[in-house]
């Protein structure tokens, strides 16, 4: 995530993404950002040939707070991700259809993606490659989570989790890391392209005026 108040940082991020071969990106933005600023960000990214989608990372401690934040922000953001800080929250987030992505803090050893969460999960599991920079010992934890997700056929999204332009990696590099961690070629390439794109497409459709509910669309409006 570039510093959104710094125009140069945003431009550099967009250029780096283009150099890495991306066409679209979901950027985590702070909740209080003005619409004009988001529009200006979209323009900066569009100038570099990158389509920008906005994402929110919800981090809260209990169920009520999570449901309140989902009610408030679901229709504002293109992608809704939830940081699972405890097991109960992980279960609620995984089950809720408004949540697109769940992810776990790899440095927290008391909470992880286990079978009970995987069993009810409608959301995709996100693996942040940036977590590998800090401690290589986390590889075992990530491999275990991938194994559980594969057993329960949970979709896996590979993300760079970058906080600066120099943490951006190419999609091929992300999929190579996914393969090293235990994904097959198809799953690894889908994790950086097809799955994130399908999430965004689904949400863009949901936010359109014609959408009523899953499988129901407005075909024609009569005045």
């Amino acid at each position, binding site marked *: 995530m570039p510093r959104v108040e710094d125009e140069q940082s945003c431009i550099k991020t967009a250029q780096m993404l283009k150099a890495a071969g991306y066409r679209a990106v979901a950027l985590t933005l702070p909740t209080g950002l003005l619409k004009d600023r988001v529009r200006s960000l979209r323009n900066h990214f569009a100038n570099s040939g990158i389509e920008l989608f906005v994402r929110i990372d919800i981090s809260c401690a209990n169920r009520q707070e999570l449901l309140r934040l989902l009610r408030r922000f679901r229709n504002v953001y293109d992608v809704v991700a939830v940081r699972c800080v405890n097991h109960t929250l992980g279960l609620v987030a995984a089950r809720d259809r408004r949540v697109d992505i769940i992810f776990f803090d790899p440095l927290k050893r008391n909470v992880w993606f286990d079978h009970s969460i995987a069993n009810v999960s409608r959301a995709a599991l996100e693996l942040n490659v940036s977590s*590998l920079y800090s401690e290589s010992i986390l590889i075992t934890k990530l491999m275990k989570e991938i194994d559980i997700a594969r057993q329960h056929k949970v979709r896996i999204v590979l993300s760079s989790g970058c906080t600066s332009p*120099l*943490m951006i990696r190419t999609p091929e*590099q992300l999929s190579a*890391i996914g393969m090293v961690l235990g994904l097959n070629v198809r799953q690894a390439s889908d994790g950086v392209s097809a799955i994130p794109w399908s999430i965004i497409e689904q949400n863009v459709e949901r936010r359109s005026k014609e959408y009523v509910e899953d499988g129901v669309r407005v075909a024609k409006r009569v005045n």
Partner: protein
Amino acid sequence: MRRYLLIRIYSDNLTALSGEQFNDALLSSVRKYFGEIGVSTIAPKLLRFDPHRFEAIVGCQKSREKELQAAVALIREIAGSSVAALTVRISGTIKSLVTS
């Protein structure tokens, strides 16, 4: 049989970079994530380095290019400066990487 990777290095404050410095960073990344056995099975070898364009061509054992790509992606620092090492292309010949 070997595979060759064209790698481009991006940095904010790195003005000069030598092949040795990049090779050290590459080998230590392979060693950190894949161990000594990984170093011998992947067999990474720096073949060419362009200090002006910050580009390197690295060879590895065929079928081990994914491991090398992952190790390159996990390089974060060279000579104390933050860097991004991006794999531009993978090929079976050095010639096709140079002419691309």
